[in-house]
């Protein structure tokens, strides 16, 4: 757990005059699962988007294995192949079947062999329990199934790190589980991940490290057992309280 995959150094991101991320430094090591939590608008989703170069940043640096990730940069597409990202909304390509959704980028972007890619795609579908949906179109899938396919579509690129941005937030409650189980399975197999989620029980189960953000800064971080039982800061305590109902 020593090799750094991603290094974030003093990252600053503004939307207009509003500093959404106000100086964040953070490193993620190989095999580590980091979960970002915090109230809505605290900047955790924006942080993930900056890591993938989807947002221009106003200060600091993001590097993947020492290579800078810069929004709008010509060689950004090379770095991005090593970063898998799954979004909150279903973003499968609606004009392609499940199998083609997964196979398109390794074939077109990485120029890999079609037969090898197809075998790998089917293997991934098997792993997430969707072998029988290979030839379906996204419109024929449930939300949970779509998100599992989206995970496969990122995994097939052999990314060094997966970024999951509230991937269960738009799902019906009964589908949340099937998706989170896939993520837990990935964690067990040593996939490096950064996860933004509102599912606290899941966060506790999957994380090696929990980072609590508020107002664009890291307020508290630590091991999940420590954080969820004994949050040190008052802000974290208040946030965690909102998840329990008391009369």
């Amino acid at each position: 757990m020593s090799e750094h995959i991603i290094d974030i150094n003093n990252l600053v991101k503004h939307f207009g005059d509003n500093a959404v991320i106000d100086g964040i430094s953070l490193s993620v090591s190989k095999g580590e699962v980091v979960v970002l939590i915090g109230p809505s608008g605290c900047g955790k989703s924006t942080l993930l988007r900056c890591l993938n170069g989807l947002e221009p940043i106003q200060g600091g640096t993001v590097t993947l294995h020492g290579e800078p990730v810069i929004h709008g940069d010509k060689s950004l597409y090379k770095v991005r192949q090593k970063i898998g990202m799954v979004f909150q909304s279903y973003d499968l390509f609606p004009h392609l079947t499940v199998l083609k959704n997964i196979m398109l980028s390794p074939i077109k972007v990485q120029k890999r062999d079609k037969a090898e890619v197809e075998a790998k795609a089917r293997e991934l579908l098997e792993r997430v329990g969707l072998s029988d949906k290979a030839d379906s179109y996204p419109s024929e899938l449930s939300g949970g199934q779509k998100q599992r396919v989206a995970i496969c579509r990122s995994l097939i690129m052999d990314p060094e790190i997966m970024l999951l941005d509230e991937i269960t937030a738009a799902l019906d409650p009964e589908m949340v589980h099937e998706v989170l189980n896939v993520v837990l399975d990935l964690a067990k197999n040593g996939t490096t991940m950064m996860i933004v989620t509102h599912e606290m029980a899941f966060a506790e189960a999957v994380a090696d490290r929990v980072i609590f953000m508020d107002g664009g800064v890291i307020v508290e971080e630590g091991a999940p057992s420590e954080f969820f039982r004994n949050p040190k800061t008052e802000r974290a305590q208040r946030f965690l309280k909102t998840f329990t109902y008391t009369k």
Partner: protein
Amino acid sequence: MDFEFIKKFTPMYVEAARLTLIIGVIGISLSAVIGLLCALAKYYRIPVARQIASAYIELSRNTPLIVQLFFLYFGLPKAGIVWSSETCGIIGLAFLGGSYMAESFLGGLKSVGKIQIESAESLGFRRLQTMRYIVAPQAASTSVPAICANVIFLLKETSVFSAVSLADLMYVAKDLIGMYYNTWEALLMLVAAYLVLILPISIVFTVLERRLRRAGN
């Protein structure tokens, strides 16, 4: 009804319809090319090109084809640009249609959500690849109904070509009415000719649209 008359002059209508169709096809194809270029200029916000495209679209959409044709056919020769009726017809139709096509293509491109582009980029697609594999196929199918409507609209607009002395269907009908006073026969053949020209296309497009709509759901 004078059937001898109809029989005698049907070949003239067929010839005129053929001319209308040829000019229509060329003009509409050109308008699709112009439309695509304008749509891309606006979609990618290419400086200068996008402003030119916008200005052109407004000029083209807010003036009648017949006025555009008069300018091309009677006006431009005074500036040393002399075009035949056929060329004027094609250019006029392309000028008019380009703006309608541009709006349809642009509508299709804009209908592809930002999230689609972001996920393609996250997978390492480059800009052109994103366009080719992700945006274009989706945009194409959403713009089909609008494109079809444009084709029919433009085909109907070809009826003003007679104004620049192109020997099209209207021209033949007017000629026959003026020469022989067989008004009913001439008009009947005119209506029939346009029906033959437009109805099949209209039906094919309706079926196509229905099929697309079903595939989309």
